[in-house]
């Protein structure tokens, strides 16, 4: 079995203010669906080095299996990983308090001007860019697995079933994940 890329040297545990401000930025920068994954990886993994790519991929995957907004789950988990329950509260507070107030006022304002073409054009341009960023982040997190043909096969299957066959997410998750884990188990047993 191919070796999974080793996580780089990690920084010591984050302070509560650092968690708060990091997730404040994640929240404010994450435009459109999925933006949270892009920015949480950028800040928690690349810049602050709180966790490695492998742990980050685990957290994203874990959150996929639970109800609710997954991005919030990333804040909850990284906060818990760094400082336990209080860290979760700091990360959540940063993620929510200020952005929620800004978003609420901005949204109520937008609702008034939703018909303006310039506003629509700007939002369209941002949405096109944000989609590209999300695709790139998914590819990055898949990279450590690129030498395992079975991993690429399962990633490709999941991609096709959602993007082209348009099956519901839950169906895809609960059919492919057990299979993927079974294959990984067989490979591990053979490698031994």
């Amino acid at each position, binding site marked *: 079995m191919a070796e*999974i890329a080793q996580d780089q040297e990690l920084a010591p545990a984050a302070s509560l203010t650092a968690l708060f401000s990091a997730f404040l930025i994640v*929240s404010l*920068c994450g*435009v*459109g*669906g*999925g933006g949270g994954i892009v920015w949480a990886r*950028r800040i928690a993994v690349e810049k602050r080095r709180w966790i490695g790519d492998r742990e980050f*991929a685990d*957290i*994203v*995957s*874990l959150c996929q299996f*639970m*109800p*609710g*907004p997954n991005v*919030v*789950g990333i804040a*909850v988990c990284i906060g818990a990983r760094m400082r336990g329950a209080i860290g979760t509260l700091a990360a959540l507070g940063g993620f*929510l308090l200020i952005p*929620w107030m800004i978003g*609420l006022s*901005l*949204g109520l304002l*937008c*609702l008034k001007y*939703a018909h303006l073409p310039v506003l629509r*054009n700007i*939002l*369209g*341009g*941002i*949405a*096109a*860019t944000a*989609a*590209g*960023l*999300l*695709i*790139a982040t*998914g*590819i990055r997190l*898949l990279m450590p*697995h690129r030498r*395992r043909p079975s*991993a690429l096969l399962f*990633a490709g299957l*999941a*991609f096709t079933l959602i993007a082209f066959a348009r099956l519901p*997410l839950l169906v*895809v*998750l609960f059919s*492919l*994940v057990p*299979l993927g884990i079974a294959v*990984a*188990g067989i*490979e591990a047993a053979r490698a031994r």
Partner: protein
Amino acid sequence: MSDPSAPIALTAHLALVSSISFGGFPTVLPDVRNFVVSTHAWMTNREFADLFAIAQSIPGPNMILMMSFVGWKVWGFPGAVASAFATLGPPCTMYFGAYRIWYRFRDTSWQRIVHLGLVPVVMGLVIASGVVMARAADTSWRAVAVTTAAAAIMLATRLNPIWLILVGGALGALGLL
């Protein structure tokens, strides 16, 4: 709005659907629409669609904001706060509990196998949702080019993506997309 129990009914309903919103809030959005538009007539279908488009395109916790807008419509600012908590509370409790369990078993060999099987599937899903978003956003070949360029630059460099977002928004404002 005439019914004083409306905020309670909305909050309870949001807490319920957020507990079963596997795959994120968009999966239960049709149900929420039925509840607030058809069952209770708190807003029109058109208003609901506008709120969704706006929640998608402003920064911040989008789906929590979406539900807060709905709460705002029903009961003003207190309604917005109550809806935010109802949407957040149950999932956050579950995330926290699940992560504690996952972290406790972090060095076991079975967890390594779960990681190897699980992560590729989820990353396939992430890339797919990017493509689905692109399909909705890219209404011209120039927009497709912007999406592709954003992905390529993000992969090839360590440039802060905020610059890409700003350029994308500017190109849109100039009417080039």
